[in-house]
């Protein structure tokens, strides 16, 4: 198990370097000039050259990549003289746009994205699993039909539509919630939750439907297994059978799905953040993209990839814990 984990971790690093290389190439091969963007409108040729040199853009591509990768571990010093910026491990460079360390920026935005993703995940798991299990236990009844039609319908709703309807209904008409704007949990937990509730709902509706469908089919499959029949025959109460035996193995496929979704969402809720104007990782990325802020773009892609890979790893390890049949 330990060996396996170590091997997988090495793989994670390999994947991250590959992602960095691909991102690097995309942005340096394609025409986009961050120096010109930073220089502004009255930009003379000499000034542009000076800025390019300052940003290190005048060096060959492989060299820039090497500086970046090695800089992550050893740290880097950017600029010179009084204005030199020192950046220590883990050094992802400095934003061209606002001169903050990319790592700090990411860590500043992560709580927003994490709040969004985790809160929504709790909601959708609760909603999705309860719906799915209920439907599974009442297989082929009217309840089952209604729930499943509802789930397919909800999953098909464009998230823009759901969001606007939520804004209209809960904010404009009912006046129940404030217009979302991020308040950190540490400052005011109640306000944090009430501001995020709407984005949570919008995301949860989308995902809950998927989880309901998935958990239903998985539950139905499990409940048909011989050992469940045995447990029932032993005279165990239905509740115990469902909760102790059915859920445990019925939920393992859900775990995969959940790991991937959460990993993807932590750094990729671009749309939701954009709809509700939340200052998360997704918006950081989007803003960096429009200003050609390459260090930030690179930082976000790496972080996002890291989340996905780590989430996958975590899922695989959890699998071994939850499902005794899986050996690593």
């Amino acid at each position, binding site marked *: 198990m330990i060996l396996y984990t170590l091997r997988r971790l090495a793989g994670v690093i390999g994947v991250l370097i590959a992602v960095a290389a691909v991102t690097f190439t995309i942005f340096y091969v394609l025409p986009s000039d961050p120096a010109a963007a930073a220089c502004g409108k009255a930009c003379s040729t000499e000034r542009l050259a000076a800025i390019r040199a300052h940003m290190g853009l005048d060096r060959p591509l492989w060299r820039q990549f090497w500086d970046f990768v090695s800089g992550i571990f050893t740290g880097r010093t950017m600029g010179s003289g009084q204005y030199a910026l020192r950046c220590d491990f883990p050094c992802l460079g400095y934003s061209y746009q606002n001169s903050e360390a990319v790592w700090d920026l990411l860590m500043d935005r992560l709580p927003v994205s994490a709040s969004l993703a985790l809160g929504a995940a709790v909601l959708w798991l609760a909603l999705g699993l309860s719906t799915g299990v209920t439907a599974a236990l009442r297989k082929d009844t009217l309840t089952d039909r209604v729930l499943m039609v509802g789930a397919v319908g909800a999953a098909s709703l464009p998230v823009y539509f759901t969001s606007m309807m939520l804004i209209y209904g809960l904010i404009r008409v009912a006046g129940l919630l404030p217009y979302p704007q991020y308040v950190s949990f540490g400052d005011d937990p109640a306000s944090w939750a009430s501001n995020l509730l709407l984005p949570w709902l919008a995301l949860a509706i989308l995902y809950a439907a998927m989880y309901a469908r998935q958990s239903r089919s998985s539950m139905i499959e499990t409940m048909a297994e011989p050992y469940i029949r045995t447990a029932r025959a032993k005279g165990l109460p239905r509740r115990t059978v469902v909760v102790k035996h059915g859920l445990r193995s019925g939920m393992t496929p859900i775990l995969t799905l959940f790991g991937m979704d959460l990993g993807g969402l932590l750094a990729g809720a671009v749309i939701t953040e954009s709809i509700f104007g939340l200052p998360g990782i997704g918006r950081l990325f989007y803003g960096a993209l429009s200003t050609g802020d390459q260090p930030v773009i690179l930082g976000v892609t790496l972080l996002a990839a890291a989340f996905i*890979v780590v989430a996958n790893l975590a899922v695989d390890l959890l699998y071994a814990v939850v499902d005794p049949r899986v050996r690593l």
Partner: protein
Amino acid sequence: MSSTAPDSAATSTTATAPTGSGPWQLARRELRRRASVKVSLAIVAAFLLMAAGAPLLSALGGRSPDEFDKSAIDPYLGGKPIGPLGGVSADHWLGVEPVTGRDLFARVVHGAQVSLLIALTATAIVVVAGTAAGIAAGYFGGRTDAVLSRLMDLTMSFPSLIFMIAMMSVAKDVNRIVLMTLVIGLFGWPGIARVVRGQTLSLKHREYVDAARVGGAGSWRILTRDILPGVAGPVIAYTTLIIPGMIATEAALSYLGVGVRPPTPSWGQMIAESVSFYDTDPMYFVIPSACLFLTVLAFTLLGDALRDILDPRGGRT
């Protein structure tokens, strides 16, 4: 990441039960029994027809999708359509777009063409590439498998939406529809490749495949005659199920402003622009949203049914 592989390999041994009387006939009979299939097929067919006949349909409506109509809007109210329901009239069957007065019917019909074209072509790329990679990895095994599997893992580790946005936004002088199709396709193939790989692994040592091999058939022949038909069921089901995702991705990219070039309409572009009018001109917002909703719903229902029938236990990734 390899977690799902043992799972689907294990389950798919029972996937395609050999039946005497033609599995496809059975499938067709089963499909015909379901009401949801009929409805969703009808919806899909309607939208496909609409997309294919877009120029014809908008000619019928008498409006081109790019043509402004100033008489239909009130410039003093920020270009709000004149008349009820977003300016519905004999002239504009579904009303007009605010500000420009462009005909909503013509735009939604042409938008269907663009959105479905992108989604279906991207799906085709994904399916062809994914199936080929999956079969190759599963059948040849060894180094081929190792390389392809690593490639799948790598591609799946990419934050795809983020990469798509990035690629769309840096590329300027290109056909955006083609680029969008390719970009969406690029990140989709590993999912299907895994399913196919698992399926192929289980088929590879079936008696009839061994028999063919012993009979001296070449790899190509075995792959096309024996393996491909075996994986076709799950592939078809999976394909139908990923189409909604493709449509949604097109919409997402357009929503974020990296989609088609104006004035080309697509459903995503229309939704993105109409969001700001959701309360002042609800009709404008509802129409493209409803189209997106119905299409996604129809493909999902169809895919569900196909999966139940063609691949009752596999294909869940």
